[in-house]
């Protein structure tokens, strides 16, 4: 049954939340997600200001065990390593762009904050010029 649900979630017709749930399950185990409140996905290419905001958020919070960070659509591993100090405990480098497949196509240029509750996705929030997900986390309004 669990496999069926997982497969349904991964199908192209699944809703956004299910798609993110599906790829999250492919990459992280329950142990990985234990006590994690937010999963932050940061593409390397797209909305420059939004990505800078996400990278700054990562630099400020990389030691926070309630957060996990995924870097996706990585254009240059060398540049990424130069820009951010990669913390192996909190970072997943999505070299295969698995997380990107869960995005709606038009949103792939934005970082996304996934709110977790009991290891399940509770909400999906984009950091874009119209919506400031990181500000909301800081103000605890997500």
């Amino acid at each position, binding site marked *: 049954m669990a496999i069926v649900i997982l497969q349904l979630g991964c199908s192209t017709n699944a809703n956004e939340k299910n798609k993110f749930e599906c790829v999250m399950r492919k990459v992280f185990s329950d142990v990985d997600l234990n006590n994690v409140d937010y999963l932050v996905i940061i593409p390397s290419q797209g909305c420059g200001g939004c990505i800078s905001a996400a990278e700054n958020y990562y630099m400020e919070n990389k030691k926070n065990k309630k957060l996990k960070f995924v870097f996706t*659509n990585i254009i240059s591993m*060398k540049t990424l390593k130069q820009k951010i100090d990669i913390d192996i405990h909190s970072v997943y480098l999505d070299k295969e762009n698995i997380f990107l497949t869960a995005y709606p196509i038009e949103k792939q240029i934005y970082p996304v904050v996934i709110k977790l509750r009991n290891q399940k996705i509770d909400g999906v929030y984009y950091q*874009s010029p119209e919506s400031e997900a990181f500000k909301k986390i800081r103000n605890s309004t997500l």
Partner: protein
Amino acid sequence: MKIKYLNPLLVFTSSMLFICCTEKIENENPIHEYARTDEFQLEKSDSIKFPLDSITSDVTTASQYNDDMETYSFLSQNNTICSYNYNDKKLIYKVDLHKIDGGIEFLIKNNDTIYVYNGKPHSISLINYRGNVKKRFYIKSDIKSFPSPLTGVAPMLLRGDNIIISGSLYGETLNDNENDRKVSYIFNMKSNKTVSTVPYSSLYYSHNWGSGLLRWVYSTESPKGNFMIFSFPADHFIYENRIGDNKLIAHYAGSRFIDKIPSFNRSKATFFKMDEATKYFAESNSYANILYDKYNKVYYRIAEQKAKYNGMPGWKKEISIIILNTNFQIIGETFIGKLHGTNNYSLFINKHGLHLQSDKTDENFMFFYVYKLTKK
């Protein structure tokens, strides 16, 4: 005025406003056959590579070939200018730009005279190859809207005490006009005065081009010395401009691979979402760099063919290169295909030919294909 007349009047005036600002233009390519011959082509003759160190990637946003020094330099993603000897492909030096908080574009005159433009704040730093700052100029705009380059696709030019900087103006505004928004300015290093110059071509003031990438400004110097050439992405024409003058002299330079470049069918007053803008640009034909090849006395203009947008990784436009003689007659066009994502910032010309950044994905080298101009 009676209420019964007021409503239709309001509807009429608001409809007029809507129509005037949302009118879409197809912008078809006139394909001036009479102005086009097919005598010349670009032929791939060689490939070269510059080795990169462990912290430098093959991604850049500005570069320069210095003919006198025979060096190729590019701006790396870690705030350094990496300068290579072209002949042996060895790294000569890295200029650390951290002292001036990084840079967006640069111009190397010699090892002791390097100009670096920084957009925050608008400043030009004069440094040497050790990164020591000799002087810093802070630039103030003389008009309402000021171009701020994000990359080096419109290279800085030095003319005596003047530095000429060109850049794009993002966003669509209803009151766009040639006096308030200019794409170039001349900064005099002695008087610290700025003179804004060069408007967008008229197409840009009347229609919506998606706020961003179709508003990029590409330029090059002209062999005439006191002229520059501008290429605007949505325009089939290129423009000659006498430095310091606002007049644009149009020359047809359209691609045979491009049928039309329709504007976005929306009012300039509507906020453009970045995701919509990216899709619109990817699925539109466009023009990019204009370069002058002084060895062959020709211009090269890059034409980018529309792609299918299926999300961020993967969409890349195929390009062709239009070849024009110094009388602006098209004398050939060569289809190239897909290149590296930063080719528009890294490409250069020297006596060996036109160097285009290859799409090889090996971060240990910067690869280039070398194209030579040949007669068919």
